[in-house]
């Protein structure tokens, strides 16, 4: 019996450990490349007023930046929860991503407007600079205006409590206040 003959077994044990770890990793989860950087410069019209806004307009911080569009089904799902968050005093800026501005205004009239303001990113150029690859996405802009977190997909109370609490401490659970809002 030689120690050398155990090398393949050892190599396999390492490999199996790696594969076991792999079972609990989601390979499609992609962290934002812009984390830790200031929100990119932009100059775009505001959705409702039409006046040009720049990054200085995102002044109330920490805040959420929510990427949404009327063509995005999941955005409709998370919309009521955004409204609940806004009512709780969480500042939310909207990035209306590659959308028809008229339709987007209609959406806000019908479903309510949780946003401080909305960047009308018709061409998707702000989204591109931010590293957006779909909607909905929600970013945390911390007190210094730095991108501190990104969530891809529907924002729900569960996700918010789990991932966003370092920046926003809400006293009571929102659902206790508003009943069952959140993901339908």
């Amino acid at each position, binding site marked *: 019996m030689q120690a050398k003959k155990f090398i393949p077994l050892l190599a396999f044990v390492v490999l199996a450990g790696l594969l076991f770890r792999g079972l609990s990793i989601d390979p*499609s989860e992609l962290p*934002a*490349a812009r984390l830790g950087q200031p929100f990119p410069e932009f100059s775009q019209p505001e959705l409702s007023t039409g006046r040009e806004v720049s990054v200085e307009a995102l002044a109330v911080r920490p805040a959420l930046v929510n990427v949404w569009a009327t063509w995005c089904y999941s955005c409709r799902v998370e919309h009521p929860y955004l409204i609940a968050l806004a009512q709780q005093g969480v500042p939310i800026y909207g990035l209306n991503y*590659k959308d028809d501005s008229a339709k987007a205004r209609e959406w806000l009239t019908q479903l309510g407007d949780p946003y401080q303001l909305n960047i009308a990113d018709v061409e998707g150029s702000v989204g591109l600079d*931010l*590293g957006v690859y779909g909607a909905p996405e929600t970013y945390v802009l911390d007190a210094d205006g730095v991108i501190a977190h990104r969530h891809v997909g529907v924002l729900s109370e569960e996700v918010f409590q789990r991932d966003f609490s370092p920046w926003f401490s809400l006293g009571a659970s929102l659902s206790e206040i508003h009943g069952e809002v959140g993901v339908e």
Partner: protein
Amino acid sequence: MRAVIFVLLCCSPWGASSTWAVIETYEFSSPDLERRYHALSQELRCPKCQNQNIADSNAPIARDLRVVLYEQLQAGASDDEILAFMVARYGEFVRYRPGMDRNTVLLWAAPGLLLVLGAMGLFAHFRQRSSQVHAALTDSEKSEIERLLQEPRA
């Protein structure tokens, strides 16, 4: 053969109406730009898709990135500038050819390293074995064996 086991497509992430070839009709100002466009679009990974380059993907984000790629090429950006632009926004993830950094050194060095180590091992092995060839063949040894075999046992 992107499909070896397309069998597995059963629960495939290729959603409905997403499996036709992406064909776009960009006009390039030079054949060289067209060549670089094809090369880069095959080297950039679509951030949203399962495992496709932006050239083959029908995802909206892939389409957007192709537009950016086309515009930057036409504007005279170099390959490195374009890659840096993409990586700044979508991370190292978008490069199918990982750039050299602390983590990828092993990935890039592995083939050469393994080959050299293996070749050294083989070489040592053969030197040892080939000395046996000659050792086993010397005439004096042969006759020695003969002699021993023929010796009456004690």
